[in-house]
């Protein structure tokens, strides 16, 4: 297992008022993302525990794009990863934000 942590400034606060959501499951090629509204509005954090070691650079790139596209200010994302591909990671992160912003459940 490898542990990775990224913090970033987010220009905008994530919409809505839900305190937390969880999407996905931990399985081969899949992951769960727990999003919690616990940070100051201008910050976000992604905390990852992954079964696939040595993909730090890819994670960093995925997280950077995600923060740029979705600006999830105030959210902390905790990820348990079963070796998901970057497209799945990006999808789950987007689903988590969408869910906590209340667009869909």
């Amino acid at each position: 297992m490898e542990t990775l942590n990224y913090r970033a400034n987010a220009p905008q606060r994530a919409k809505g008022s839900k305190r937390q959501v969880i999407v996905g499951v931990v399985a081969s090629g899949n992951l769960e993302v727990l999003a919690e509204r616990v940070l100051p509005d201008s910050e976000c954090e992604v905390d990852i525990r992954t079964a696939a070691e040595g993909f730090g650079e890819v994670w960093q790139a995925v997280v950077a794009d995600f923060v740029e596209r979705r600006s999830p200010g105030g959210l902390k994302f905790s990820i348990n990863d079963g070796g998901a591909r970057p497209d799945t990671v990006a999808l789950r992160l987007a689903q988590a934000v969408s869910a906590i912003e209340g667009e869909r459940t």
Partner: protein
Amino acid sequence: MTTWDNAQRLRESRKRAGALYARGKRVEKKDATALLEAVIQPGDRVCLEGDNQKQADLLAVALAAVNKEKIHDLHMVQSGVVLPEHLDLFELGIAKRLDYAYSGPQSQRIAKLLFGGKIELGAVHTYLELFARYYVDLTPQVALIAAVSADREGNLYTGPNTEDTPAIVEATAFKDGIVIAQVNEIVDKLPRVDIPGDWVDFVIESGKPFYVEPLFTRDPGAITETQILTAMLAIKGIYAPYGVQRLNHGIGFNTAAIELLLPTYAERLGLKGKIASHWALNPHPTLIPAIESGWVKQVHSFGSEVGMDDYIRARPDVFFTGPDGSLRSNRAFSQVAGLYACDMFIGSTLQIDLQGNSSTVTADRVAGFGGAPNMGSDARGRRHPSQPWLQAGKEADPDSPAALRRGRKLVVQIGETFGDKNVPLFVEHLDALKLATKLDLDLAPVMVYGDDVTHIVTEEGIANLLLCRNNDEREHAIRGVAGYTNVGRGRDKKLVQQLRERGVIRRPEDLGIDPLDADRRLLAARSIKDLVRWSGDLYAPPSKFRNW
């Protein structure tokens, strides 16, 4: 004095030798090996019918059992290398040289035998090239073929999986070769005659159905959200704007997703009747919902598919079933149709390089490519115009006068940026190149050549290579949809942004697609059982695909 009938006389002597084991044309199963030893000579070119799907399995076992003191150095010319016995021939020293087009399950073992020098490789052909050379300089001296049934005269019914048989037999029988058929059973009256009896020399009743691989069955249960997203992109970003009606699909899960989105997503886009109506395609079970919803006008098939025969029989308006009601497939004709009559090929691959070349060959697997190289190439000789073909031609070459401009076939590669086990789809250099170096091949085994590829679709978007004006643009169009692979991360962001502004790269949001809409609930069928239901219980999937 010149004699002009040497081949005929050789043929007669082979037939006489074989006749010792025959009553009329009929040879008992137990005498199969003896018959082959009598008829075949060392160094012969032999086609042991191994197609994409059906296999002359009894004859394969019989040939692998011949005495190699008597028979050796055979030159195998067959499209599919599929059964273990196909390679046992080389390991045992019965065969030496190989020309083929496809090997699925045996790809790893082929690579080993090639590395070990047990196989002299002629070429990894496309189907059409191999069939073509049957008629030029690779004509079989002996063809060992498979059919469903024979009558007393040796007429053959090949059943729904006719596949390669007519192409093989025509070349062999008319150029003084010997044709030996294994049949499941001998009957008084055939449903129809696929191969006339006077082209067939010997018939062996095997007593059980020949082996057929269910190669085109994709379980909708295994289709991922990302594959659905790529399918949505393809439908909205390629099928719709070009108005693609005549097409071929590969066998991957992305194209299976497209088939299953036609009655749902594409229907809601108002595309019914405007796209995907005429197909050169094996009877994919995942096409059933589209057929049942009235999307599909006509399908011509290379072969059949396990479990689909009753369904096909019940949909004669769609399939080529003929007077007897069962499917008549034909790989050679369907490949020609795919090459010349279709406006689009779309399929998946394992590796794409920066020029857009693609291959499913990896360093230790020599798969061969099946139908993709013929379908996935532009037929430069084509004359008949169609809207998608003209439009693609115009995009590639906007400045030539329209009446002199060649159209282009749409050749689309579709896939996720990372495959199984996080292996990237995009690479700087194909593994096929390494393999070519290792085996000292003149040509690297490329499946679809980059200059034939018009679009690449991934979850990141669509790259339209027709609109690229130089190599640099082309490379960056590819990098632009290569996501988080090394190739993708090596992109120049500004250049990619410019390409996006020109519509060379189109992201999901550029097409009005929200990736979060890519939900399995969009699939018209989410399980094999759903497909059975769609078919009105006519589709009978093999047991390994069932969960009921």
